[in-house]
């Protein structure tokens, strides 16, 4: 089984984000970047599938700047076999041009399975995975929490409101990973040195301009502290009042 995993370099969820001087991009200086956590689930799932099959290849593909090589090496240290960097100076925020570039690469690879995270925690667009599937004309199951592959057929589970949806599909297919799919492994120290010896191919790509333009970035308003309106049943009227008239959620 040949599996591609698309991974993205994103700011750590705990990084303190500052907006750059142009007001349109974040200021990356001093920010720690990590492998997108949802992509980690995708990498882990690919490694598990390969492990269970006892054979196959896991290829980590990233679209980004040169710095994304570091992210690819994290995936290689976890156990992926080789990496491909689709190098662009600015991957932008528009999911469609990104999906086009990825699909062009992935379509050539002869993959049985293409895995992605359900979203990247930088822009939260949740669109690239499904767009890649559409562009490649492949079946797609998004935000999966469980996966079985037997005899070239797949069965995935996704959480829907009030239940679980089970989807059967033919390979090749595109899947996006939701939290809960698995528990990603820590790379072993030995993996770091082994990763250095694994192939990492860098291909220059050009993104089309796309249709989205960032006008302005702003930090969310600071959250106000909570308030305890009272305790026990006597507090219910005050709580209802606050929910109706202050929070306006009822």
């Amino acid at each position: 089984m040949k599996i591609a995993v698309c991974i993205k370099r994103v700011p750590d969820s705990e990084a303190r984000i500052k907006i750059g001087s142009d007001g349109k991009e974040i200021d990356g200086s001093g920010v720690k970047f990590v492998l997108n956590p949802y992509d980690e689930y995708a990498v882990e799932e690919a490694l598990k599938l390969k492990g269970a099959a006892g054979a196959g290849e896991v290829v980590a593909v990233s679209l980004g700047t040169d710095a994304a090589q570091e992210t690819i090496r994290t995936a290689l240290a976890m156990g992926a076999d080789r990496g491909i960097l689709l190098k662009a100076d600015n991957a932008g925020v528009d999911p469609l041009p990104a999906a086009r570039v990825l699909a062009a690469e992935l379509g050539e690879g002869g993959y049985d399975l293409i895995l992605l995270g359900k979203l990247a925690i930088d822009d939260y667009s949740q669109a690239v995975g499904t767009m890649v599937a559409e562009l490649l004309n492949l079946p797609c199951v998004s935000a999966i929490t469980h996966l079985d592959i037997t005899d070239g057929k797949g069965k995935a589970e996704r959480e829907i409101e009030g239940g679980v949806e089970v989807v059967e599909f033919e390979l090749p297919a595109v899947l996006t990973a939701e939290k809960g799919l698995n528990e990603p492994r820590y790379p072993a120290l030995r993996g770091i040195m082994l990763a250095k010896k694994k192939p990492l191919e860098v291909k220059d790509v050009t993104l089309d301009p796309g249709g989205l333009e960032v006008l302005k970035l702003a930090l969310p308003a600071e959250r106000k502290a909570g308030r305890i309106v009272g305790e026990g049943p006597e507090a219910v009227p005050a709580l209802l009042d606050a929910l109706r008239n202050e929070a306006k959620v009822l």
Partner: protein
Amino acid sequence: MYDIPYLTEEHHQVREIVRDFAEREVRPIARDHDLEAKFPWENVKKMGELGFMGAPWPARLGGAEMDYLSYIIVVEELAKVDASHAITVSAHTTLGTSPIMEFGSEEQQKRYVPLLASGQVLGGFGLTEADAGSDAGGTKTVAVEKGDHYVINGAKIFITHAGVGEIFVITARTDPKAKQRNRGITSFIVTKDTVDLEACQQLGVGHVPDLPKTPGVRAGKKEDKLGWRASDTRELILEDAEVPKENRLGELGKGFVNFLKTLDDGRIGVGALSLGLAEGALNECLSYTAERKQFGRYIASFQGVHFALADIATEIEAARHLVYYAAWLRQHDKPYKTEAAMAKLFASEVAMRATTKAVQLHGGYGYTTDYPVERMIRDAKVGEIGEGTSEIQRIVIARALLGDLVNVTGD
């Protein structure tokens, strides 16, 4: 991310892995293991699988095939969250395993290092005795040659892993009549069963049934300690211990010079541990002072608090450079004895000052087990004692400065 001249991208990757592990696996259990003085076997198993227990050793001997600086980073990152985990790795690696790597025959390396480097069993180093602490050359343990083996009698105290571990390097007097008493000391490898057999068998770590055990070697009572409470410290008793001659480690009569070398290595490890501890304490202060309000303001907004934080941070930076520099010297096969002593001396005293200030910045809360700084101040103290007290480090440093003058009495 610190860009500092001693470190490569791989070192940063090591740091990321260990930091992640420490936050997710160590932080949640550190408090309870400290309070209950419980050894963290589950995490030892995981650390073994991730290569933390054999970071600098070659892959053919079960190691992670990284370098000495990587090992230092592992210890530092663990210590930011829990010093007991850090000393477990440090004592196992530089005290337990490195003498076999450094002085062992190929045969000995092949037999013992894979078990140690993979973290399958824990190792330790038995030097200190009741009457031989700072004066480690005063060892009274004796080894008498008898046919194809030695009979060893004596008791080692304060030995890290004496209970949980299975493989130990110990020192004993082989020539009581040696003119220079230090020349009469030799090192040996001895083995015993872990005291936690049942738990180990269940978890699949810490015990190797087919490793032949040395008759007459056992663990004594467990110490009830101020800090490093989740680390195992006990007596290691040798009672007519029958040690095959092939378990002699290094040359006859070279035990003293050899363990001095081992201690030099260990000291950088304790320096890294102390550095991590100080950094961990600073991190706690940064978050606490930004949350705690008094006089209607976050205490982090008081200039008096700024001064304390700035002092801790500056001392940490200085300690970091001493520790990494000593490790870098060792890694590049340059003399590092004095620098190792300086790194350990300075970093351990920085850790003591930093954790003391950290408790102060937490006020009464910092004096309770609800906040990690209460554990950190207790954990910091032993950095100034183990692997040579601060006074002994100063003696080592002065000896390098003054040479033989140190011993001239002036009479």
